[in-house]
């Protein structure tokens, strides 16, 4: 009989043989959560979007692309697209310009930098549901401080959130107020990464402050600008809290945005299939934005 050579320490041998598994085990808890609550929903949403499914009725019925064609024919959908893009196209550039101006000023200060940074960043961490009620009170039709000031200046007052021509602008003000601080700290980080030598060289070449801004700051800051642009776009695209709490999409659908429409279809009207199709359209738009970013980042952005 041939004897099998036994290892001196079988337990150690086993653990060594299984050592390659360890890194995967370390990833497992996080991966499981992502799998169940992010990846699976991503695919399942697509699947649901091919069904007519009212949560109140039991049986989903396969309808192919019908939800998407209903969506394309729906004026409510296009209205939400319009409102969402107005919101993004105003809040995005506005908040970036204010943020850049703040970052340029604060970065040049010798004192109190942390104080200013903290003040302007404060709204980003404040509970927007709570601050939304405060803004609604500030813009209150009868007793709001804004109308008091307008009255005092003898300018016409408005009913703000109750007026379909001013409700979206009020949400735009709130959104800008909230996101500026976030963009500001990203710009501050980007600005402090620009080597001082470039400014000195430009100054020796006789460039004035404006020229230095356009020829040094703007190109050197472009990676940061792109990052801010895309992250801001993605966040603004999902605006929901202020709409749901303050206007409910109204008056006359003037503040109905895509995320709100999605929530309303899924959890108020229970048209789950249609809501899933909406979700997929939102997802596709975000994907396009993201791919655009990596495309631009690879080509046009100026690195050192």
């Amino acid at each position: 009989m041939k004897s099998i050579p036994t290892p001196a320490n079988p337990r150690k041998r086993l653990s060594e043989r299984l050592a390659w598994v360890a890194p995967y085990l370390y990833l497992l808890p996080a991966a499981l959560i992502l799998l169940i609550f992010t990846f699976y929903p991503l695919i399942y949403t697509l699947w649901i979007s091919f069904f007519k499914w009212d949560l109140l009725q039991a049986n989903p019925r396969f309808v192919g692309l019908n939800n998407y064609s209903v969506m394309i024919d729906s004026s409510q959908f296009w209205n939400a697209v319009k409102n969402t893009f107005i919101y993004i196209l105003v809040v995005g550039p506005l908040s970036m310009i204010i943020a850049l101006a703040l970052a340029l000023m604060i970065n040049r200060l010798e004192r109190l930098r942390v104080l200013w940074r903290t003040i302007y960043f404060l709204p980003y961490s404040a509970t927007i549901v709570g601050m939304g009620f405060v803004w609604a009170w500030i813009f209150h039709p009868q007793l709001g401080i804004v109308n008091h000031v307008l009255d005092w200046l003898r300018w016409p007052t408005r009913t703000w959130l109750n007026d379909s021509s001013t409700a979206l602008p009020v949400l735009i003000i709130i959104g800008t107020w909230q996101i500026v601080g976030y963009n500001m700290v990203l710009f501050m980080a980007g600005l402090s990464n620009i080597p001082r030598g470039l400014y000195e060289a430009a100054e020796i070449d006789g460039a004035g402050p404006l020229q230095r801004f356009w020829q040094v700051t703007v190109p050197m800051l472009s990676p940061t600008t792109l990052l801010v642009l895309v992250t801001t776009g993605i966040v603004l695209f999902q605006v929901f809290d202020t709409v749901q709490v303050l206007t409910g999409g109204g008056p006359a659908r003037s503040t109905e945005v895509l995320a709100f429409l999605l929530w309303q279809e899924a959890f108020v009207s229970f048209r789950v299939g249609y809501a899933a199709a909406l979700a997929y359209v939102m997802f596709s738009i975000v994907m396009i934005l993201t791919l655009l970013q990596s495309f631009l980042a690879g080509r046009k952005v100026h690195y050192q």
Partner: protein
Amino acid sequence: MPRAFGQRLSWNLRTREILSEFGFHLILLLGAIFWLLPFFWMVSTALKPVAEIFSPNVTLLPVNPTLDNYTKVWASSPFARYLLNSFLVAILILVGQILTIVPAAYAFAKRDFPGKKLLFSIFLATMMIPFHVTIIPNYLTLAKLGWIDSYAGLIIPFLTSVFGIFLLRQFFLSVSNSLLDAARIDGCSELWIMWLVLARSSLPALAAFSVFSFVRQWNLYIWPLIIIESTELKTVTLGLVQFASFESHGVENAGTLMAASSLVVIPIMLVFLLAQQQFIEGITTTGVKG
């Protein structure tokens, strides 16, 4: 002549610098007044008696400050419960997240294994998926598990954070391998190295992540809105909205609504102010809106 000229030039430069510094402070101050106005107005209104809120003569500060609005809020709705719920949920989520992100960040930063690059990009890609896209299936999953209207439903979907993994990995990468090898020679196990060498040397990153995660959970609205029904499970955002709708949006309740809002906002402001350095550094390190 050159010397005097040089002195004058530098003096002029210095004056210009001081003037521009002063000008910037002035602009920033004016902007800050507008930026802080909502916070100020919230607290000021919350401390005003009803008569002053109705009065046509608006005053910036309450003439006869009172805590009436706060006692009314406290008496008419379970705000203590809402605050406790939000605190518990945010803390439990944070603990769970740390337990899942530290091992994952360790694997991505300090171990080599087949498929590492691919897995890491898959993890990162999830940050691009808007939360809204996942809410319908997640609702259905929770319904199947019987977790609708429960603490489990509020907590379990959030038990990991790719933002956190990314942030920690950046820090872990900067910890020298010789430190880890020294610990291995001393006979430390990998788990020991992960938690007591790496995680401990990355406490600033963990602190940054903790504040970030806590603030995010405290402020979260859409998820509790979808899955929570019972009053005793409501978080602060949901409780506040319920309070507002019960009280109707009527003018007579502006004082109590501002008091209730401040009960939600002020705790998280304090958390942020205590840890704003870490919070902001966490964001600028990764450039990600968690």
